């Protein structure tokens, strides 16, 4: 069992609190994404879980056993975890085969078993023809596979991934996303995946944890986070929604609405009742859609329309806000855009 429990976790570097009271339970076998902008503390949180960093307060338990608390940290090598680093961290002086087999040799397994298990994992990750090569002789995607194979060959209970796809080009990134999910489903270890890319998070995770300034803003499924953001930060960071002032039961309450959920029409009365008049400030043609920035009541509103809706900048438009698409937000913390 590798249920991962974080309780009141705090980490400071110098005077800066990087991780600020994180409580989170990750069930055994789950795939969790820590999503947030750079500097939000997600990498530090991952390094706390790995045991490279000691917490200043709080504790971490794996399968009910405490592994991290201030002043007592089980070292990384005794945690039964594996990690994929952003740099891949392949050892340049070892071949693919030696890199992949390292964790098994450290565990003092007999040589023929090492060979057998390395061969099996290399087959699963399509590395067989490359076993005798050195990392510098591999492409980025191949290096990524070696990093995966090296992490998985030891059959970890927990796999940690730190922005593993940020060094790959767009096509490969998409392919590896599914590969990472496929391997997770095949081996059923607990996965903690750190990224700043919301589409990566949505494509892979069971549970997305949005982090901001060292705190959890919202935790939920991709659908939850996207459709029902609980804060202005989440609304803006995940998919870039509008956060606008509104009224709910007579009280001033900000609300969020997706770009594609706003109805934009060029003539009054053609759209929903209660439409707001505005002026087009900017218009961008994106092929499958058009992106507008409209000024209405002193607010700049971003709207996405089908490509056939074509209004010149400076022309008036009417914006409709379907109430079922507007999500009230209780408070407006600073940050994000």
């Amino acid at each position: 069992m590798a249920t991962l429990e974080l309780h009141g976790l705090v980490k400071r570097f110098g005077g800066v609190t990087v991780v600020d009271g994180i409580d989170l339970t990750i069930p055994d076998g789950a795939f969790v994404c820590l999503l947030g902008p750079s500097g939000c503390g997600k990498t530090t949180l991952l390094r706390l879980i790995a045991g490279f960093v000691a917490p200043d307060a709080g504790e971490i338990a794996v399968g009910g056993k405490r592994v991290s608390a201030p002043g007592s940290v089980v070292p990384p090598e005794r945690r039964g975890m594996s990690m994929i680093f952003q740099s891949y961290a392949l050892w340049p002086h070892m071949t693919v085969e030696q890199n992949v087999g390292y964790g098994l040799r450290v565990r003092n397994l007999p040589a023929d078993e090492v060979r057998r298990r390395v061969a099996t994992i290399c087959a699963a990750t399509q590395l067989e023809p490359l076993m005798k090569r050195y990392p510098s002789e591999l492409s980025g995607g191949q290096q990524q596979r070696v990093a995966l194979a090296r992490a998985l060959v030891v059959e970890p209970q927990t796999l940690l991934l730190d922005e593993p796809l940020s060094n790959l080009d767009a096509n490969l990134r998409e392919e590896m996303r599914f590969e990472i999910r496929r391997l997770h489903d095949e081996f059923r270890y607990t996965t903690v995946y750190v990224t700043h890319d919301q589409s990566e998070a949505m494509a892979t995770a069971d549970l997305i944890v949005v982090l901001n300034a060292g705190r959890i803003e919202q935790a939920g499924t991709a659908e939850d986070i996207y459709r029902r953001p609980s804060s202005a930060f989440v609304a803006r960071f995940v998919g870039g929604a509008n956060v606008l002032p509104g009224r709910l039961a007579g009280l001033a309450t900000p609300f969020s609405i997706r770009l594609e959920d706003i109805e934009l029409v060029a003539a009054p009365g053609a759209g929903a009742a209660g439409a707001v008049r505005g002026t087009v400030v900017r218009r961008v043609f994106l092929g499958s859609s058009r992106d507008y920035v409209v000024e209405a009541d002193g607010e700049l509103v971003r709207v996405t329309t089908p490509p056939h809706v074509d209004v010149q900048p400076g022309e008036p438009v009417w914006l409709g806000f379907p109430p079922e698409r507007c999500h009230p937000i209780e408070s407006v913390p600073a940050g994000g855009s």
Partner: protein
Amino acid sequence: MTRGSPRDFSRALFGAAALVLLAMVALPVGWLVATSLSGPHGPTLENYVTLFTDPTLVQPFIITLESSAAVAILCVLVAVPMGWCVARTNMPLRRLVRVLVMASLVTPPFLGAIAWELLAAPNTGFLNQLARVAFHLDRAVHPFNIYTVAGLTFVNFLYTFPYAFTFVANALERVPADLEDASAILGARSAQTLWRITLPLILPAILAGGLIAFLQSMTVFGSAAILTLPAGFHTMTTRIWSLFQFPPKPALAAAASMPILLLTLLLLRAQQLILGRKGYVVVGGKGARRAIVALGKWKWLALGFCALVLLNAIVLPYGALLDAAFVKVAPAVPTPANLTWSHLHFVFFELDATPVALWNTMILALGAATIGTALALVVGYLVARRAVRGWQLLGFLATAPLAIPSIVLGVGLFLAYTRPPLLLFGTLWIMLIAFVTIEFPAAYQQLVSVTSSIHPELEEAGRLLGATRLRVLREITSPLMRSGLVATWCFVFIGAIREISAAILLFTAPTRTIAVVIYDLNESGDTGSIAVLGLLLMVVTFTVLAVANRVPIAVTAVEEFRE
């Protein structure tokens, strides 16, 4: 970032390394300060009063400053055009020029000075003899005289300009062509671009090079001792040395060390400020290419200029040494009649000092290189990985010896280890401590950069797969550092076999080194033996350098570190 558990062995290592470094720096400097303030009847400022009033102490100070300033200016005037020609033009033989500049960098100034004695001593100097024959001059006339302040300045310039050259050439190589193209596209001619864009960009490097040249010639002992003593004047370093001659005045010597120490601190601080100005230093990106200027027919003039400098720094001096080693009475044009093996035979089979000095030099160089590299590895690793609290303190202590000129360190060590409980004077230990201290900062800086080039994630990946910290160090870190370690070891070794500034104050007859023997022989005028020993020193140096160069220093780190 602090890593590892509290009971990690890195704590103990940190404590040990910090203590060693502290002792290395604080002990000699502490005794220096204390002694300079002491008199026969308790604490006094008398030594400092003497320092500023006695003309025999003030005069060397002025000579040194004047000569060093002249060296710095000469170095900049020569290093900038030469660096530009080598780094940014299509001048022929650029590689050879660079190699020869490096050869003059590793030539000990005292050896250069001895060679220039052979070339330009007033009466016997080869160039003077040549001039008399060529222009039918009288025997009493000597166009060249190396035993002057000008002569000392010239020799110091020849063996310090490589520092300025390296700064300038490296900076020029890092100026991205884009910056110059941007100027050209706006209509600037290439001379204008050079003057208004390129030179201002490398100005910090030029200034830093000049400062280093000043510092080097201010603190040099070997060349100064060889050229000033026959001429009957002193520089600061030779004056300090003379205070140790009978009757010794260590308290005055300690006081006389203070101005050099303070000036060195000041100049190093100035250099840091110049090089540290952000936005001014050019950092070339990965794809930054540099533009090569086609010189046309001017390239021969450029080559001629470089050749003239290297003729004086390398060709003539080494020619003179070779000549002295193999002709009966140097300097003389070698003919089959006056060639001889007698100097070689004398040095290796008759001179009593040779076996002792050879043995001492080898032991000291091997010891200093091994101990220095090992200590630098521990400290460099702890600092580069920020593996312990207080790593900044370690880094400071490790570079502190840079600010202590060798001769000042020699005075400090003499004072620290001529009294109980550490009676090390007269043993090889005190020389070993001196050599390790002198070479340590460079070794440390090299190993910090080697460690930094190894991505920490490479080690962390090993930890997570179940290897302990020690096992990771053994199986992952050390193999990746091997070439860097070998190179560092070689550089400390070379530094140690040529050291004279501190050794001259610390040696006794049984602990003589080759460099000390060469210096002694120079006083007795035995040029043949000096040449043989000097060339031997250089053969060893170049052999070790060749080994070091065969090992690629670059370590392949997979990607650059993000954090």
